[in-house]
């Protein structure tokens, strides 16, 4: 069973199309989306439509902070993000807005936890930016493996579990995944995988980022997929959104 994990699509149609094609070519039989379908990008309607169709066919989608902000307003956000959320609200139909509002905050299956930000207080949208934050999240759940997004930089954290518990004494291992190299998620450890961003990578590599979990082999593989960010950037400019949102896609920052 191959489960494709996609996070932070951010209304980037070109990147999502490229990633879906890449994941299907590699035999993904299921899709799980880790939140933030809208915001920053100029194609919220197409992306949400695509998502609704995929969820209708068995995909799982969970809530991200940008998706939540479509309903609640972007008051807590920084300026370009807030601007785009206000614009996005006008782009989406009632049905699409209702779909986003009804998304679950977390999802659990087979001992795995899926959410957008982190497990201590999922609704606070804190970032798993380092080993300490990852350790706190790992210790707050009984699930062996946690998958999240929100950071826009792929990372893999792990911790030893002994006699059923994870000690405060042990450090978390931090790892920057290498694209295309499967990592065995050793079953006696606790893991937290931050999946990179499909639509707005921020680790210096502009190509779209996602991962595939092979649940039979228990291996996680991060992937990078090139897409035409000039087209995406042009749409962002044409929509009158802040030009720096187009510019950063070229640099992956």
């Amino acid at each position, binding site marked *: 069973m191959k489960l494709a994990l996609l996070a932070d699509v951010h209304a980037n149609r070109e990147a999502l199309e490229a990633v879906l094609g890449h994941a299907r070519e590699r035999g993904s039989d299921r899709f799980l989306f880790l939140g933030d379908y809208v915001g920053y990008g100029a194609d919220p309607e197409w992306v949400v439509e695509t998502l609704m169709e995929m969820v209708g066919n068995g995909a799982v989608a969970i809530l991200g902070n940008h998706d939540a902000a479509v309903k609640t307003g972007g008051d807590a956000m920084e300026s370009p993000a807030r601007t785009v959320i206000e614009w996005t609200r006008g782009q989406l139909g009632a049905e699409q807005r209702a779909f986003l509002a009804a998304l679950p905050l977390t999802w659990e299956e087979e001992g795995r936890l899926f959410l957008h930000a982190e497990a201590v207080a999922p609704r606070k949208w804190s970032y798993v930016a380092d080993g300490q934050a990852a350790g706190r999240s790992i210790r707050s759940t009984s699930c062996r493996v946690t998958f999240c997004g929100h950071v826009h930089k792929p990372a893999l954290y792990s911790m*030893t579990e*002994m006699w*059923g518990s994870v000690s405060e*004494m*042990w450090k978390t291992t931090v790892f920057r995944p290498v694209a295309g190299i499967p*990592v*065995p998620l050793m079953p006696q450890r606790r893991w937290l995988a931050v999946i990179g961003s499909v639509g707005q990578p921020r680790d210096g590599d502009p190509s779209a980022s996602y991962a595939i979990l092979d649940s039979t082999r228990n291996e996680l593989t991060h992937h990078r997929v090139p897409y035409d960010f000039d087209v995406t950037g042009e749409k962002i400019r044409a929509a009158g959104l802040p030009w720096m949102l187009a510019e950063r896609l070229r640099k992956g920052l």
Partner: protein
Amino acid sequence: MMHGRVQAGQTVDGFLIGELIHQGGMSTLRKVTRPDIDRPILMKVPKIQEGMDAAAIVSFEMEQMILPRVTGVHVPKFFAAGDFSVQPYIVMESIGGNTLLHKLDQLPLPYEEVAAIGAKVATAIRDLHRQHVIHFDVKPSNIMFRPTGEAVLIDFGLSRHDQLPDLMAEEFRIPYGTGPYLAPEQILGVRKDPRSDLFALGVLLYFFSTGIRPFGDPKGKGQLHKRLWRDPVPPRKLRADYPPWLQEIVLRCLEVDPSRRHPSGGQLSFDLSHPDQVKLTARSERLRRDPWTTAIKRRFNPHTEEPVVRNAASAMQVSTAPIVAVAVDLSGGSEALAEALRETVQRGLERLPDARFAIVNVLKQHRIALDQKLDEDGQNKHLMRLVELRHWAQKLDVAAHRISFHVLESPDPAAAILDYAETNDVDQIVLGARTNSMLRTILGSVSAEVAARAPCTVTVVRPRRQLAGTETAAPGDA
């Protein structure tokens, strides 16, 4: 996480458990069999008891992660693994024979034997590094030999794969490893430099050739740190007949700053296999340690550790420290080709500062045995060729330790070059294309055969050919 003891006669996941062959501190090894596997195999089972050190578990996980990812003659073949939820184990190929540990009561060994062992182990290390793995525990008890002669590295419990998470980094009690063999950067907690394995091999070479461990058998942090500021006694002080070339190699391995060691296992193996080509420096002449005052200054200098940490490189670095064999054929009389080859080599020298260049020429030999007079003649030819090669290389701007010269004798030049590349673990072959089409028709193309059969990248150099009948039209025409 409760595990029954694995006992003879029991079956675990289809493996029939046989006799106990090794009882270590962290694990046990037993012979096992399975009907569909026709070679000798072993099962390694960690000793795990309530309240024990997490390091034993982490180390076993690390080996479970890495062993399935490595292949080839220099590692035991992986067959199966069982996880901690039922019964943790690893099943791997049994190499047979002894580890190098059994040599310890015969030390010191003859210099040639030490160099031969060292060259084989360095080749194995090189092979592992090429597969993105640093062993981090190279020592006699982790080295075995196949009946065919290749060194095999065993026990990957402290290893690191640079494309996989480093689980040992979690451990709070750094450093993990074997005291006498730990590289200075490992002692400082740096787990990323492949040259740490070359340091460990240097300790082994020193020990095997003198009978004395260069840094003793230190216990505790302070004693371990001593090698950062106190240099070992030069082997030549311990054994008066110690060859300078071997001291050069061993002391280079034991450099505190990793950037002063050999850039790769391949280059170390090359030096150990070609004593006459080792560039001797002040290291080879050293007869005593640095004075105490110098050592004490180093000890209390707060900056002593800086270059060790700063110059530690990642595993990817070894791929830029290749051995390049340049096959130079001076018989064609083509100065243009000789020049083109030289230019290509010069560019490589500049672009790959850690690369090493072996300049090779094949002296064609007839297949029949030679009589005395012909043999002398052959000797002269051999020396003459070396002189010619050095002359060819004179115009290159290169440090002496990066270049060496070799005349191979063979009736078949292509076979000789290929054989050289194979035995010396060459990463790239550079050779010229014969321009004289007449000769090529009669003799066949050496470059084509080498390119077709080489185990590595081949670059064929040809001076720019002027195309006939394409003179440009004079200006004003048309």
